[in-house]
Structure formats: structure tokens, C-alpha cells
């Protein structure tokens, strides 16, 4: 590829263009050319993965956005095509570009019908996910956010299991309901901005300077949170997940767990928390509490599952609870740990779904009762599975430990007003029991699948991992130990953005609080505006939404 193009200012556009171009090419290929279709789509995705390495050329230590592109799109409404990547979204972009080809690659043989459409759906999905991670305009983000649903809906509904239509519709409606409320909240926010600034804007970097009265913040925050909490999914909005996972084909499950769930947390981090700091501080501990319930509840529910894929799905609920906890701890290492744990979960759970897919492809069942003693016939498979399972339960030396450890320390030391106050330690005590329960359900799964004598005749001649499967898993294995032993590669690039996020949040929280108490005092908004100028460390002056105009 032309090196000057790589250094161009349009790197992110290029990143979005590659899967789009791939989809375009695949669209015009004859459907009988299954082999060519697979090669082409994976080829485009690998090119995309390669291209994402040029993102590393920027220096992320300023905590700001890089490769920013901004083009006005619908001028009257202040909608722009605004892209940018910082230390927070950087690794999520990598996660997407790495796992999409792997997910397609492992489905190489299991998907035999409508290969063309399958490849198209994956390319579309990659485009939408990347778009959502790099959008800095709320409208643009919303477009990508909703665009994700479509290919995933078809992936589950067309190539899924026996109850695929039920699962697909459930997935679609669940997520749709949440996002509609978010849309309403976005429109309200833009209206409030218009009241103050005199023009409309969907630009995150402009909207985040808006200081919104407490009551309004709470409602808007709740609307955003619902959309994201469903996507994460957080207890009790998780019930679409086990169905979607069990019905989705392996590739779909991998993408769903590894990347799409991350968008929920990313939404908290990028939108809901910076826009509504007062509300998120007020409601954050409650969300963290639901996270803790999710940790324990998810682990218990995982323990009693009879289907391996369901077990992994519930383990996701448990893990995502940890991530939410770390995020709302609002300590630098808590948030950084949450971010790292997003990567870890993507790697480990992605690998687990691939591994469960391996035995499903051989036996067309995932019930534990159908297995046992596989360590004897599939030693490599057993080795890979045990390593991934151990990383999932956070054994030191693997990736899971670093993330979990940072989250738990972050929660334990989250004693300030911004954070959990006196509850940090109590939260840690309960959340840390998840460490025990994780071992319980994971070792249960390992015991059921691998140890003991072989009880089913069909298992006696199972083939061990094929070269293709090993090739798909090896990068993930490498990451498990890389992140576990030398996380600095990843943390060094994200921590400045995270620190920036925490400081920004705290400053804006203080500004909102001051504004709120002045409002209580009956000080006219003009005075409040003057006050709000100082604490905001951003590049544009803060604007204060008028309570009367915005809220009532």
C-alpha cells in the first residue's frame, strides 16, 4: 500500500473504507465461488488488520484524539462526519480488526449455505463496529450503532440454530428499544445546546461542554444508560444474551461477545459519563451494585448450565459486571483496568466461543452430558481450552489477572466523593467472591468436558484441532500471555487517555455541582456561566444550559 496514504489525514476514513470496499467486491462475485468469496473477505479483513497498525504511529501520551477528520454533513442540524481515535478507542479498534477475520476464519467450513451473504454480513458488521468506535458525532455514532444490528440480526437469524428466529428477533427488539430512548435523549441534548449556544450540534466535543441541571442530567443519563446496559448486557437486561449466543453460529458468537458487548461499556465511557457527570456520579454506585449482582448471579447461573455455550454466555455477564464496577470506581487504575479487561474479555471469551464451536462442529451438540474424557483424544484441544479457561478466571500470568486485579484495587481505593465513597471496600469484598465462583463454574466445565473416562462412543475417534483452528486460536493465545506478562504495551497507550477522562470527569462534576448549588441559590445563569468557565479544562468555553429553557 502506498505509504503516503498511510500517513494521510484520512486514515480513519480509509479504515472504514476497506470493509466497505470488500463488501462491494464480494457483492459482485458469483455466489458459487465459495472459496474465492472466503479468501476475498478474509483477505480484506486481514488488510484492515494490517492497516490498523498505522494507528500506532501517533503519540497517545497527550490523552487526546488523533487522526481527527471533521467534515460538515448536515449543516443546519450541526451534524458532521467527525472521526477520531484516542487511547481508549485505539485497542477496541484493534480488537475489532483482529477478531473479525478470526471469527470468519473459524466459520470456514461450518457455514456451507449462502456463503456470499455471510461474508457480506461480516464485512458490514466490521464497518459498523469500527464506525461506532471512531465516531465523535452523536448522530454518526447512532447511525453506526444501529447499523450493527442489521448484519447481526441476519447472522443469528439465517445461519443460527434451531430457534434462531426467536433469538434474532429478541436480540433485535431488546437492543432497539434501548437505542430508541437514547435517540430521544440525544435529540433533547441537541435542543438544550441550541437554547444556549444558538445553533444545533451533534458534536461530542461541543456537547460535552454543556452543563446541564441535575434533574435533567438524571433523565438523559438514564435514557443513555438503558441503551448501553442492554448492550453490555448488565443484570437484569441480560436475558437476550444466552439466547442470542446459543442460537448464533460460532463466528457470530465470537463477534457478539468479543466486540459488540464492548460497545455498551464504550458508550458509558465515551458518551454517558462525560456528558452527564453529576448523574453518573449519583447513579454510578447503583450501576456498580448491579454489576456486582451480575458478577455473582452470572457465575451462579453459569454453574448450572447444561450447554457449554450458555455457560460461556453467562460467564460474560459475570465478567461484564467486573468491567462496569471498575469503570464507575472512577479511579485511574480502576478505569484503566476496566478498559484492559474489555480487551481481555474479547480475547478470552472470543477464544472460548471458538473452542466450544470446535466440539460443536464435530458432534453437533454442546451438552456437557455428551462429553467427558476428551483430554485423552484431543490433547491439544484440552491444552488450549484449559489455558483459555484459566485466563478467563484470572489466573496470574494470564491477561485476566491484570485486568481483574486493577479493577479490584481500583474499587478498593475508590473512596473519594467521585467514586464509591465509603462503599468501595464493601463492593470489593463482594466482587472478589466472583474470583471463587469463576473457578467453580469454569473447572466444572473443564471437568465435564475433559476429565473422567470417555463415556460416549462417538467421542472415541474425535479429531484433535485442525491446522486452521490452531491458526485461528494462536494469536489469541499469544495475547493471553502477552497481556498477562507485559501489559505495558497496552496500558501505556491507554492510560493517558484514561487519566484525561478521569480528570475531565472530576472537573466537570465539580462544575456541574457548583452550577447546581448556585441555581439552588437563585443566582442567574449568567453568573453560573462565568463560574463554569474556569474548571472546564477543555479547549472551548463551557456553556450552561438554562434550566428553564432546557428542562421545563
Amino acid at each position, binding site marked *: 500500500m502506498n505509504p503516503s496514504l498511510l500517513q494521510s489525514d484520512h486514515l480513519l476514513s480509509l479504515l472504514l473504507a476497506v470493509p466497505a470496499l470488500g463488501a462491494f467486491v464480494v457483492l459482485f462475485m458469483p455466489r458459487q465461488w465459495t472459496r474465492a468469496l472466503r479468501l476475498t473477505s478474509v483477505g480484506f479483513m486481514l488488510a484492515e488488520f494490517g492497516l490498523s497498525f498505522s494507528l500506532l504511529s501517533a503519540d497517545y501520551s497527550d490523552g487526546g484524539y488523533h487522526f481527527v477528520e471533521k467534515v460538515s454533513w448536515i449543516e443546519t442540524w450541526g451534524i458532521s462526519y467527525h472521526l477520531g481515535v484516542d487511547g481508549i478507542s485505539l485497542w477496541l479498534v484493534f480488537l475489532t480488526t483482529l477478531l473479525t477475520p478470526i471469527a470468519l476464519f473459524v466459520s470456514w467450513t461450518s457455514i456451507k449455505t449462502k456463503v456470499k451473504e455471510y461474508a457480506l454480513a461480516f464485512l458490514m458488521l466490521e464497518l459498523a463496529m469500527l464506525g461506532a468506535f471512531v465516531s465523535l458525532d452523536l448522530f454518526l455514532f447512532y447511525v453506526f450503532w444501529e447499523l450493527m444490528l442489521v448484519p447481526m440480526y441476519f447472522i443469528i437469524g439465517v445461519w443460527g440454530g434451531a430457534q434462531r428466529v426467536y433469538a434474532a428477533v429478541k436480540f433485535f427488539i431488546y437492543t432497539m428499544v434501548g437505542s430508541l430512548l437514547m435517540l430521544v435523549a440525544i435529540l433533547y441534548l441537541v435542543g438544550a445546546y441550541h437554547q444556549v449556544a444558538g445553533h444545533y450540534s451533534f458534536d461530542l466535543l461541543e456537547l460535552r461542554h454543556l452543563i446541564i441541571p441535575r434533574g435533567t442530567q438524571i433523565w438523559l443519563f438514564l435514557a443513555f444508560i438503558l441503551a448501553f446496559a442492554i448492550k453490555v448486557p448488565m443484570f437484569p437486561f441480560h436475558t437476550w444474551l444466552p439466547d442470542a449466543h446459543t442460537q448464533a453460529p460460532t463466528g457470530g458468537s465470537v463477534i457478539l461477545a468479543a466486540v459488540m458487548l464492548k460497545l455498551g461499556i464504550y458508550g458509558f465511557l465515551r458518551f454517558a459519563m462525560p456528558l452527564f457527570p453529576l448523574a453518573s456520579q449519583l447513579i454510578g454506585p447503583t450501576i456498580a451494585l448491579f454489576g456486582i449482582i451480575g458478577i455473582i448471579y452470572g457465575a*451462579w447461573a453459569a454453574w*448450572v448450565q447444561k450447554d457449554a455455550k450458555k455457560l460461556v454466555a453467562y460467564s460474560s455477564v459475570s465478567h461484564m459486571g467486573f468491567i462496569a464496577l471498575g469503570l464507575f470506581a472512577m479511579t485511574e487504575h480502576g478505569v484503566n483496568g476496566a478498559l484492559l479487561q474489555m480487551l481481555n474479555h474479547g480475547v478470552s471469551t472470543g477464544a472460548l466461543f471458538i473452542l466450544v464451536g470446535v466440539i460443536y462442529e464435530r458432534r453437533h451438540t454442546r451438552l456437557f452430558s455428551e462429553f467427558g474424557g476428551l483430554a485423552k483424544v484431543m490433547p491439544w484441544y484440552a*491444552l488450549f481450552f484449559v489455558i483459555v479457561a484459566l485466563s478467563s478466571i484470572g489466573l496470574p500470568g494470564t491477561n485476566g489477572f491484570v485486568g481483574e486485579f486493577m479493577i479490584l484495587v481500583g474499587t478498593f481505593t475508590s473512596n473519594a466523593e467521585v467514586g464509591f465513597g465509603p462503599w468501595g471496600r*464493601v463492593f470489593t469484598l463482594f466482587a472478589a467472591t466472583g474470583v471463587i465462583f469463576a473457578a467453580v463454574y469454569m473447572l466444572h466445565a473443564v471437568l465435564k468436558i475433559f476429565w*473422567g473416562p470417555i463415556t460416549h462412543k462417538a467421542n472415541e475417534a474425535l479429531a484433535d484441532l485442525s491446522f486452521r483452528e490452531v491458526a485461528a486460536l494462536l494469536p489469541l493465545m499469544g495475547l493471553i500471555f502477552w497481556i498477562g506478562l507485559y501489559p*505495558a504495551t497496552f496500558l501505556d497507550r491507554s492510560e493517558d487517555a484514561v487519566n484525561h477522562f478521569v480528570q475531565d470527569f472530576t472537573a466537570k462534576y465539580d462544575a456541574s455541582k457548583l452550577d447546581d*448549588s448556585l441555581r439552588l*441559590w437563585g443566582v442567574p445563569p449568567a453568573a453560573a456561566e462565568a463560574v463554569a468557565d474556569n474548571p472546564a479544562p477543555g479547549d472551548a468555553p463551557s456553556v450552561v444550559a438554562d434550566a428553564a429553557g432546557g428542562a421545563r
Partner: protein
Amino acid sequence: MSELLYERALIWIILLPLFGAILNGLFGRFANKDIVSALGVGSVAASFGLALICFAHLMTGMGASEQGTQIAVTAYQWFHISLPTVGGVHEVAIDVRFLMDALSGLMTLVVTGVGLVIHIYSLGYMKDDPGYARFFAYLNLFLASMLILVLGSNLPVMFVGWEGVGLCSYLLIGFWYQTPEFAAAGKKAFIANRIGDFGVLIGMFILVSAVGSFEFADINHAAPALTQPFFLGSWQLGTLATAAALFLFLGCTGKSAQIPLYVWLPDAMAGPTPVSALIHAATMVTAGVYLTCRLSPVFLESPTAMAVIAVIGSMTALVAASIAVAQNEMKKILAYSTVSQLGFMFAAVGVGAFSAGFFHVFTHAFFKACLFLAAGSVMHAVGSHSDADIFKLGGLRKIMPRTHAAFLLASLSIAGVPLFAGFFSKDEILLGAAELAYAPEPFSANWVGWFVLIVLGIAATLTAFYMFRMYFLAFWGDYRSAEGGPEAHDSDGHHAYDPNPHESPGSMTWPLLILGSGALVVGWLGLPHEWGLPNWWAGWMSHSIASVPVVEAAEGAEAGISLPFVTSMVFGLTAVTVGIGAAFKLYFNRSDDRFRDAMPRGLYQLMADKWRVDELYQRVLLRPLAALAAFVGWIDQTFVDMLLTRIPSQLALLSGFVATRIQNGRVYTYGAVMSVGLALVTWYFVVPRPLLDAETEGATASFEAAAGMGYAYRWDFDSDGTWDAPLQEHGESFGADRSPSHEYGPEALKSHVLLIAQEDGDDARFVLTDEPQPLPESLLPAGWMEDPSVGATPPSAFFDGERVILRRNSAVVATTGALVTEELIPLSMGERLLLGRLDTNRTSIRVGGLVEATVEVENSFGNRARQSVELVVNVPPERPEADAQASLTTTRDEVLR
């Protein structure tokens, strides 16, 4: 050699077995057995060699400085966290850093040395196993993890090893994974260990948040500051030291098999015997003792934690020993014996004799590894895979002379026969307890000393008894499973054991003899100080381990016979004499269980059933938890899913269903719908609704009632019973004005209210009377006043006829920046006061007047409806003596700007 080379060597001590594990694990399956053996044993031998070199270097430098010599090396920074401090954030690095001092150096020698011997033994023991390469891979991985645990210089790195050894233990217990019970035992061990790991994590967090470092050296240095209280939420739970020590000790009970988490260790004997010897006797299970020694200054800061450890340790020693006397299988007896001996070590730690506890770790590694390997040698000889029943053995003294010799040496050692290693280390422990028991006044925990002394005395007696019971039954008399012997056939008529046992090969017996001689000689490193003999051990340890003042005082004393020393000797020698004597009397050259026959049947059965603790845990813990999990799984599929998916979807379906039913084209359906609609419309028109809304601005209130067909209104603004608009002249009169305004005067007020701004943006109303009433705490922001429960005056307010007087709390209160010094704060209507401390939440308080207004609506049907509303208005104050407050008001104004 330069310092750098030693640092390199330190890293290679760990890396060598790790590479051995990786190579054997990945490729051993395809390789020649000799290569696997060379790799497995060679890497450990090299590691042991390096450890010896490093330790020798330490010894030569010992005493050169106060701290003693150390070899420390930082490989790289793993990750870091940032703790919030007063002045910003404090970055806490978590380095991959290793440190060898006397404590970790000796432990490293034990791990690699005993590990090497056991590796060599395994060459013979595992010769024909199909998982030969896998076995050595796991064993090497274990050694690497154990070395990380021991050499790690901070808590997280230690924790890597701590969980790593747990993993290897899991893998090795379930090594013969095709037997479901073995795999289940592995799982049980891992989960029990994880419960402990939870404790270690929390302990670690407490320490780092208090000290700001994970390094052992920093934590120990800062230990005296850990006496501050530890808060969990708003509850105070002891001091930081107590909380940290007890959470860490929870970890120790898991790893080192103490009450209540010891139950995994006996089951762990399902693994191959070398594993039992190495992991579940000599090294891994002593990690808890190592950790407490490593952090001894922290533990010393908490007498509570020390007492807990002493009591739990000695109770574990006793309970496990009482189970061991009633078991018949060699490995089972040795397993409970291990639990019991670990109890001895913790009892030592608990009475503050850290050095003695760690000395016992050291000697125990030799004699217990020897005993396990000897049991393995016996099993190998009689052809049993799982265990060896001592009642089916006998006479092995002549058949297996080398195994016998080693077993005897180790048994004498563990029983505590003088001059053997176990005698010296056990005596040190008893001495520590006795010193605490006789300690003068400032050490008030004497009862702990006596308790430990007596309980350990009994446990030591039992130890000598069960060891020699096993020894006499297995090695004396005649071989009972021989062809024609009493136990030759089991109930199915099969040969239970090989009728012609034979001595094991040299690769197995030589390690036995090495360890057996170790069981004799290693105790001489720590000869009793009181005999005027050199105690090298205590000298080494003094650089790494803190000691309690009482022990320090005793050690500083002149060599000589002291009262505690005599007491401990009496306890120790009585125990060994009584124990061995009883075993000799009951079992020498006999084959029946005379102890069982002499005991009450029920009690013996309980002991044989391990006090049924496993069953108890099953019943009160595991089954309820499993039931709970099953319940959660069920409720998730039914209830949660129903609430969020099925009910909404059913509602959507239902509405569609209803809509289609109505649109069914039948006239009577439409008729029914129409009449229902008509009824609703009628009701809407016939009943009037005032829907009164009001807003106030100063003293003026503007009202608005709903408009409606033929509505007429009348107003009573002060709810005094007379209609004010239109003015009531004769009887009833309604007007058309639906949105009047009214200006209130002081006479209309029902009462005065304090309006206190609340978090949610609304005002809370507090109605005043002319008697002072305390302001409810719930209405005020937290922290602005002193807690009335500690004797401070509660704030109160009343209306004195002209003004509202706020009597403030005795706390220092500021009004937006300026301090208020007056106790009584007069407030006029409409005046605002911002109350609260400078640094905490502030709230706005103002005075208003409460009025009530009523509207009545009449519609064209003549139906009436009435509605009242309470309003707070701001009636301009009539204050002739306004100058009295002038100064106060200006201050507030200044502040406001």
C-alpha cells in the same frame, strides 16, 4: 563473581524449570523418554546448583550489615496503579522483582533440593506411566511457580506463584484424570485454594491502600503504622494490621490446609506419590507459613490476629492428629499428619516464634517427603496404585531394608526423638509457647501460650503414636498379604497386593536414604541456645523475620536452663515417650487393631470418619449453594426473562389481539364500544375538575384553574371560609375568573415555614411554631453540624412573633464563605442563608409564609368540585427594628458575590 552475575543466576533459578516445563509440555509427547528425563531432572539440578551458589554468596556476606546480604533483581515493570493521596496521585509500581535473603534463600534450597531428589525418585516411580512427559512438565511448572512464590519480592509477584502452585496442584492431583474421583479431588483443592486466594487479594488491597507499596520490605517497614482503625463502609473492624493479617491468614488456611479449609489436602493424595511428597508435604503447603514469616512485622502488630492463628494452628494440629490415629492407609495417615504438622507451624507463628515455625517447615520438608516417598516405595513394591493398607502389610523390614531404614529415620524424627531434626524444631515451637505462657506482665496473652502448649503436647503424643502404629504394623511381624497369609485375598478372592513384594530400584531408594539422613541431621542447624550450642538458624533468620519482644528477650539472655525451657522439654519428651511406648505396647509384632478395640466404638468411628467434617460442609455449605445456583439458573430463565421479555411481548400481542377483536365488523361490537365511549365522555362532562395550579412570586400568588364547558369559579385565597373572589355578598356567587392573582398580607399566613433546599432540587418545608423545635437531621446536608448524639445542641428554630430565629448548632458554620459566630440567627421572610461548612455540602435556607387557597368550580350541570392548595409566599417583612440585622445581611451579600 560480580553482583550482576548473582542477579542473573537468581532469574535463571526460576527460568530453568519453567523452560523445562514448556518444552516437556509442548513437545515431550513426541520425544524420547530419555530426553524428557534429562530435561525434567537436569533443569531442576541446574536450578538447585544456582540456588546453592547464590545461597553461599548470601552466607559469606551475612553479618556484614544489619540487614544481612540480599540478592535482588528487577526484571521489568509489570504494571502500576496510582493511589490518590492528599497532594495528588502516588504511583505504585508493580515490578517483576525477585529477592533472595536468608528466609527465601533457605526456602529456595528446600524447594530445589527436595524437588531434585523427588524428581530423581519419579524417574523410577513413573517409569511406565503413559503420561511421563506430562508429569515432568507439571512437576517442573510447579517448581517454577513455587520459586516465584518464594523469591517474589512483592505481594503480586508472590501471588503469581501462589496461584501457580495451586494450578499445578490441581493438575497433578488430577493427573490420572480418567478416574473421576481424582479429577474431582483436584477441583476441590483448587476451589478451596481459591477461597484462600480471595483472602490474600483483600489482604493485599488493605496493605497497599495503607502503605502505598506492594513490596514486602516497604510493608514491613511501615508495619508500626498499621495500628490505625480499618473501616469497611462505616463499620470499624479492628485495626489495619488485624484486618490485613486475618485476610492473609484466610489465604494461608487454604494453601496450608488449616481449619476450616484443610479438607482438600487429604483428598489431594489421589495424585501420584511424588506429588504428595513434593507439593502436599514439603513445599507448597508450607507457603502459608512462609508468607506469615515474610510479613511477620505486620502480624506482630495485631495481637488479635496472632491469637487467632495460634488457636487455629494448634487446634488443626490436634484435630488432624486425632483423625490420623484412626486411619489404616499409609498415605491417608501421612496426609492428616501433614495437616497436623502444618498446624504446629502455625501455632509457632501465632505465639510469635516465627523462626521456630519456619525451622519446622525446613525439617518437616525432609522427614515428611521421606515418609511419603517411603510409602510410595511400599506401594510400588506391593503393586498398589492408590494406597497401602497397613493391616495388609507387615514384615517389610526384611523385604525392603533400605525403605525400612529411611522410614524409621523419618518416623523417629517426626515423633520428636532427641537428636533427630523433628525434635529440635518441635522443641523450639514448644519453647516459644512456653515463653509466652511464662511471659511477664506486658505480654498479657499468656493463656494463648498455655493453650498452645497443652494442645500441642497432646498432638505431639498422638503424632508419636500414629507414626509408630504405622511403623510397627507395616514393617514388623509377618507379611500378611503373602501367599497363604491372613490378608492374601480380598472379599472377591483377588490378590489385594503382590504376594511377593520386593525392594524398589535404586533410583527410588537412594532419594529415600538421602532424605532420611536429612531427617536426622538438618535439625543440627538450630541447636538449642540453652545448651550453649550454636543456633545458626536463629542467626540467619534474625535478618529476615521479626520476632516478638518476649522471644527476643529470651534469646538475648545468657545460655542456661530457664523455666520455659524445662517446661517445653518436659512436654516434648513426655509426648514422645508416651506416644511411642503406647504404640509399642499395642502394635509391636501384632496384626490386630488393639487401639480401636480399646476405644469407645462411637468415638473411634467418628475419628475414622474424619469427624464427618466433609459431610458437614456438604450439608451446610455446598448443597445449599448448589441449590441457590440452580435456583438462580431457573429464575433467570423464567422470572427475569418473563419480566423483561415475555410480559412486554405478551402485552404487545394482547393489544394487537384486542384491536383486531374490536374491528371485527360486527355491529354489536361497535355498539358496545360506542356505549363505553359515550359513558366515558359523559362522565368527563358531568363531573367538573378544578385542576388547580398556582405559582408564587414574592407575596403574590397567581392561580389557574382548568377551563371547561360552562365552568364558573369562586376563590377563597386564605381558606378562611369566606369566598374572596367574587366577593361573597349573598349566598353563592360564581365568577368567570379562572386565573386570579392575590397579594397576601401578614394576616393571611397560617404559619411560618423554613424552606430547606434539598439534594433533589425541591425545598423541604419545616413548619414553625413559637416554641423552639429541633430541625430534623434528615432535612439538613450531612456534615454541616456536629452530631447531636454526642452532646452537641441540635439546631432549632421558632417564630418569635416577628421574626424567625434560627438557633444554630455548636459546630463551626459558614454562610457561603464567612463564619457565623452568633448563636441565634434572626431571619426575615424572604431572606436566604447559605448554611454549611466551607468544605462540605452547603444548603440554602429561607423563611416563607404558609397560606392555603381554595377554589370551587361549578359546571353547567350544576355539579361542583372543590380543591385546595398550600402555598409558600414571601410576605414583605414589617420590621421596625431592621437595623438590628443590618450587619448580618451585608455580610451575606458580600459572600454571595
